[in-house]
């Protein structure tokens, strides 16, 4: 294998994959483009996912636990109050009158004791959402660590961030959402991905659609409630068309009306289907709506599906998606030619996302851009670990590390997801040193920095880095310098 072929393979692994791991350069061989495309034909499903609950099941499990916590707390509260009343009836009333302040203090203490008892009783039932989150995190991360190249996994990560939800709001479903909605459609058609994501209970929950109801719907009238614009705005602004692409406040309101009734089956009422998507006509704003100049007269969930179909087919969506993909994989300011090639592929194939990905890696412009793109923390951590050949993850450590680095798994602070530009992340590079240094310390007994450079990177590392690694005072220091080098940080 020539040096330039090796260099191409390393670039392919960094730019489009999860980073080089032992054996991956040889596996790519002399034709990285074909190897990337071939990876897209393999199944994306997580083999071990059958052991994990569906999103609805996870949601029901947490809802059940919460209900039991509430009940236990109430019981404990009542018991504590009874005890206090029993002991108070023996106390002297005169004394209490003489010391009104002391009495008030006594009440406060009693109240605290009651609350404490309630809290203790509730805490005796652990929150099942957290272990589910950790299991999901483990599976997803190990898939990234063990993928040959990791192009398909990168696409899953990209779409998961594009259609992000937050585990801060809906922890139980966060991992299952990615599997069921994103992973299942990341190499399919954009419209299918969009329909699945927007009708997924996790998204409806995250963007406040469960309680949104038409002002003239049965429930809206009876309960004197109404619309919430959140999901409609974010679908147009973030998920499809992009901001400032011509939709108006009226379009947002009409689309929000269209989306009323998209909700989930209440978990308490239905042990089989609780937490699954349902269309509830009682919440739905009656009548036709006009979105982006087109009239939608359907009176059920088909109305929303029709709007989503049209949003998916809108040319602004093709441009938005192509730009974001090219920015994520290639450069903060992606080559316009590449963006247009990808947007055209999106338009010509009715949003076939696999074809868009193939067009990207087949374009010379995607390869010509200099390797200056700063990796996001998650990608960088995976690259670091892959280089050592480790494929198993302690999810508590991993998710904790992601949080420290500012990219907590499935917990972005806003529906826009994590940013993809250097300016957002570069100042956190100092933080990465703490992580790299610590990781280097932990693995210095088993990982040889020279072997990583020669075997994993086929010596395709800057000579200055080789020199610094060679001169390091310890194996730990050598590993830390290697992981922190621009060859690891940028692609």
């Amino acid at each position, binding site marked *: 294998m020539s040096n330039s072929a090796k260099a191409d393979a390393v670039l392919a692994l960094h730019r489009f994959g999860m980073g080089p791991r032992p054996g991956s350069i040889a596996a790519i061989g002399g034709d990285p483009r074909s190897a990337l495309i071939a990876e897209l034909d393999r199944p994306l499903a997580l083999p071990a996912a059958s052991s994990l609950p569906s999103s609805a099941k996870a949601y029901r499990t947490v809802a059940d636990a919460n209900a039991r916590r509430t009940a236990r707390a109430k019981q404990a509260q009542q018991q504590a109050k009874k005890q206090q009343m029993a002991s108070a009836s023996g106390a002297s009333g005169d004394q209490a009158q003489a010391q009104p302040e002391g009495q008030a203090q006594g009440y406060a203490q009693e109240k605290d004791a009651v609350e404490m008892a309630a809290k203790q009783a509730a805490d005796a039932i652990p929150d099942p959402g957290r272990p589910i989150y950790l299991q999901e995190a483990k599976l997803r991360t190990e898939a990234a660590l063990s993928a040959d190249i990791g192009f398909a996994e990168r696409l899953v990560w990209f779409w998961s961030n594009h259609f992000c939800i937050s585990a801060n709001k809906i922890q139980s479903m966060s991992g299952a959402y990615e599997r069921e909605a994103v992973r299942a459609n990341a190499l399919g058609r954009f419209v299918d991905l969009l329909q699945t994501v927007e009708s997924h209970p996790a998204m409806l929950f995250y963007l406040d659609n469960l309680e949104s109801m038409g002002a003239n719907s049965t429930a809206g009238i009876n309960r004197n409630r109404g619309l919430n614009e959140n999901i409609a705005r974010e679908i147009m602004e973030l998920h499809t068309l992009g901001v400032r692409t011509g939709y108006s406040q009226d379009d947002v309101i009409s689309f929000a009306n269209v989306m009323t009734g998209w909700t989930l089956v209440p978990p308490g009422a239905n042990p089989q289907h609780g937490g699954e998507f349902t269309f509830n006509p009682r919440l739905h704003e009656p009548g036709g709506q006009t979105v982006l100049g087109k009239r939608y007269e359907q009176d059920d969930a088909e109305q929303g599906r029709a709007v989503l179909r049209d949003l998916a087919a809108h040319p602004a969506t093709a441009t938005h998606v192509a730009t974001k993909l090219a920015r994520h994989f290639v450069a903060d300011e992606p080559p316009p030619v590449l963006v247009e090639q990808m947007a055209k592929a999106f338009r010509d194939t009715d949003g076939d996302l696999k074809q868009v990905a193939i067009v990207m890696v087949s374009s010379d412009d995607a390869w010509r851009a200099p390797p200056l793109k700063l990796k996001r923390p998650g990608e960088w951590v995976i690259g670091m670990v892959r280089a050592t050949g480790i494929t198993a993850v302690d999810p508590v450590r991993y998710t904790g590390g992601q949080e420290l680095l500012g990219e907590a798994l499935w917990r972005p602070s*806003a529906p826009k997801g994590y940013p993809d530009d250097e300016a957002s992340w570069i100042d956190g590079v100092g933080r990465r040193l703490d992580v790299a240094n610590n990781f280097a310390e932990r693995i210095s007994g088993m990982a040889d920095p020279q072997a990583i450079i020669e075997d994993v990177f086929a010596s395709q590392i800057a000579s200055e880095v080789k020199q610094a690694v060679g001169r390091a005072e310890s194996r730990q220091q050598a590993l830390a310098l290697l992981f922190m080098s621009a060859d690891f940080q940028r692609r």
Partner: protein
Amino acid sequence: MGVVNHPPTRRELLVGSGALFAWSQMPRIARAEGRDPRLLVIVLRGALDGLGAVAPVGDPDWISLRGDRALVLDGKPPALPLDAFFALNPAMPNLHRLYKSGKAAIVHAVATPYRERSHFDGQDVLESGFTKPGATASGWLNRALLSLEGGGRVDPRGSRALGIGSVTPLVVRGSAPVMTWVPQKLLPASEDTQSRLLDLYQHTDPKLATVLQARMKLASLSGAPGRGDPMSDDPTLAPPGIARVRAYFAEAAGTAARYLAKPDGPRVGAMGFVGWDTHIAEGVASGQLYNLLGALDGAFAAIESNMGEAWRETAVAVVTEFGRTARINGTQGTDHGTGTVAFLIGGGLAGGRVIADWPGLKPAQLFEDRDLKPTTDLRAVLKGLLRDHLRVEERVLADVIFPGSADIKPMGGLVG
């Protein structure tokens, strides 16, 4: 085999999850006057409901607008009276105290020039200082730092903006380098490793070298702030409850204040707090907005006490990208709106008043029949602070800090 380190501690998580701040050298002109002013900017991300924070209880249309969700003087708990017309959310007793002692001012019906309703574009405008979204190369605070001549205490090229957390907010991005403060809970890399890495970066990647240098410089400026903090380590990663939000706000703001207070520390900083996007069950008097405002109020107290002597030369500007709908939406929350409030606190302020050209709340008086109409340009407030507190020149304010704002005159009299 684990991937990363040890379970993060509570303190690290709190600080790592979204607040940031920034700083630079001390302004020379102000120093020549024998002053040593501090300016801290707090960005509330998500759009604060200004009417939920500071209620126009004297407006005859107030109750009809918000019904039983309206803050009122005889509510439970009662709103805190500011003057004959406005009352403060009861979650903010500290702010009320500061206001009563003249150390806080409130600007109402205020907005940036942005008139759409995208958070992200709105924050771009708020933080970039430009009139339109899309100009995201630098923030107004960073440009203000550049415009101030250094007082010789720190080489201007060595001046730094500082961030807590890992994503740098736009308001401090730009040509003046940004420095990130990070809690030192992880075993830090040795100084030797750091200098070797710096040497490597200097030969291969100047941008990474700048970042690392900033971090090393900051570490040497002082011991890690927060040392001796009574907060215990908590390895759980549960979603933040309000207690943790409160602790986080106080910790982040308090850390910023400790840095700003140092004799050899920075003089200008910025940080962000998330969570203000109250679409559902806004909870103005007991729920989420009440809790968030309470946490913000706690942050004010942390700033005041950690500033120490420097408090009397401090100004803190609390701003948000836009307001929320004047009416409650269908889910007991509010959707994206326009006019809102800005809080100004600090020992250096001439406060004790609500500054507002009140637009009224009748349907026709609302912006697009839905939002509080903005009658004061936020840039006038910020320009007033930058001019009178830091002594940024008016011409520079109009051309460079807030380009195209020559018609927006700096608001006078904010600083005592």
